[in-house]
């Protein structure tokens, strides 16, 4: 079976069950704190890439604002934890919901646009969010960031070493990927793909495409916020600089390298690109160059990435859907 077609189902439960079991054993086998920290990072990016895949991969929307929702989730968790003393069990859902609310608002306002115009509007939102976060000192402490976010305390037991964080992010990954798998194999998921393939034909077939696109956005931003909350309680310090357009590009690169529009794509991409710079000191120093080269190589030689659905990146593109009148005035 083609890699891009794999979705966890009852029929292949031995396969993904085995993978899950292996994932559970990782801290027992690899005892280094450094390796576990890398694994935790990979876990965060799996959620980010998989959630971006819902809008950009399955539904074909070009959202370039994902890092902003990641940041909104992180800041929400950090503020609730440090100002109101909320524990992780409360900040996690709160962060996800707040991010999703922002996602819904943005979607309702902007999803009449498509292609490059949607991309630009999401970039605009991304930058505005960053600047507001940087300047609204009363709420976010501005450039100083929010330090002192407590680690998650589950049942009175505070998470200390990376092993605890690893299992926590693994649980969140399982939750995210479970929802993703359920959505993409459902009537809703099928509708998303139809919209990506040909939105006009989808409308002519009775699909309420606007509503569906908003739904895709809300799902994606919910999980971005979820990842943000975890980030806040793991890094224990939140600053606006971590959630800029650069970060969206990193997530997008992981998604494209792993493959758009498939279940495995974001997982492969996130894990591969988090591990890659750790393989050697040189690569770590040139992380940006490495990511850029890998992205370019993938686009040139295998646009569907490792495990993505072929044909998403070519031939229709950002601008094919919304062409303004082409009369350059010079």
């Amino acid at each position, binding site marked *: 079976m083609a890699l891009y077609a794999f979705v966890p189902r009852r029929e292949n439960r031995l396969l993904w069950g085995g993978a899950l079991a292996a994932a559970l054993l990782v801290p027992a086998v690899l005892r280094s704190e450094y390796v576990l920290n890398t694994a935790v990072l990979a876990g965060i990016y799996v959620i980010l890439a998989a959630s971006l895949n819902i809008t950009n991969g399955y539904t074909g929307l070009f959202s370039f604002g994902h890092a902003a929702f990641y940041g909104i989730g992180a800041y929400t968790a950090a503020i609730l934890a440090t100002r109101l003393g909320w524990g992780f069990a409360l900040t996690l859902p709160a962060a996800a919901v707040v991010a999703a609310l922002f996602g819904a608002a943005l979607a309702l306002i902007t999803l009449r646009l498509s292609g490059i115009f949607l991309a630009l509007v999401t970039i605009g939102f991304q930058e505005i969010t960053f600047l507001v976060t940087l300047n609204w000192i009363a709420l976010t402490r501005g450039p100083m960031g929010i330090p002192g976010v407590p680690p998650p305390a589950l049942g009175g037991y505070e998470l200390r070493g990376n092993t605890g964080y690893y299992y926590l992010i693994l649980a969140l990954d399982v939750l995210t990927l479970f929802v993703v798998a359920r959505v993409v194999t459902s009537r809703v998921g099928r509708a998303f793909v139809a919209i990506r393939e040909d939105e006009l034909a989808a409308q002519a077939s009775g*699909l309420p495409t606007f509503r569906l696109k908003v739904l895709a956005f809300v799902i994606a931003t919910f999980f971005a916020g979820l990842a943000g909350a975890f980030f806040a309680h793991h890094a224990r310090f939140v600053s606006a600089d971590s959630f800029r357009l650069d970060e969206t590009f990193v997530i997008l690169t992981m998604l494209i390298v792993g493959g758009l529009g498939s279940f495995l794509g974001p997982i492969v991409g996130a894990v591969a690109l988090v591990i890659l710079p750790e393989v050697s000191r040189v690569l770590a120093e040139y992380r940006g160059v490495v990511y850029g080269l890998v992205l370019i190589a993938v686009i040139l030689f295998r646009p569907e990435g490792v495990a993505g659905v072929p044909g998403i990146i070519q031939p229709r593109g950002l601008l094919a859907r919304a062409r303004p009148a082409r009369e350059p005035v010079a």
Partner: protein
Amino acid sequence: MSLLEVSGLSVTFGGLAALKNVSFSLEDREIVGLIGPNGAGKTTLFNCLSGFQAPDEGTMRFRGTVLERRSPDRIAALGLARTFQTSRIFRRMTVLDHVLIGLHRHQRAGFWAAVARPAWVAAEDAAARRRGLELLALFEDRLLPRVDDFADSLSYANRRRLEIARALATGPTLLLLDEPTAGMNPHESAGIVRLIQAIRDLGITVLLIEHDMKVIMNASDRIVVLDHGEKIAEGRPDEIRRDENVIAAYMGRRGARA
């Protein structure tokens, strides 16, 4: 009340009149052909009826409900389905998926049902699958054997059939077919004529754009003729065949194969 009433429909693109004061009506269980030389406004008319083009003047009533300013998906929900002149299929979706998309509005499972999967979802999916296969069976052995193939692996003729299947799945009472036999040989075109008649027997009215005169003459109960955006003739096939205005409109133009 007629199934469809179009009166005074006009559309202008930057000074060029694509449709000029077009009026006609369709009744239940009819097959009506829509012909005219290239650029006569036929596809523009389809775009207006299906909500992709806002008319500048005129009204369209479908079973009494006004169609103007409705979005295409609302119009499809009312029971008006269409195919496109350039085949618009979902390349990376299977043949079965196409009819399931057509059935989308007849199902209920949303996000929460997708995640929780209560028992009724499986039942709904199974019913949809059965209905989908029933629809594909209308196309003899063209589409059924390819139920799980991606649409971009289909031949051109099969893609056009698939579009029709998807449109039928929406459960329309009026089906707009835009050049369904384009690129087909006479044998396949005859198959499409039989298909259109079978569709009519299911209780669906068909409005059919075609350049293949044999198909139009064999399939249509009535024919409406457009030229330069205006209706120049309307009547039974044998009347249209002899109509001087129609002959004059087609004289010297390529595209009419009788």
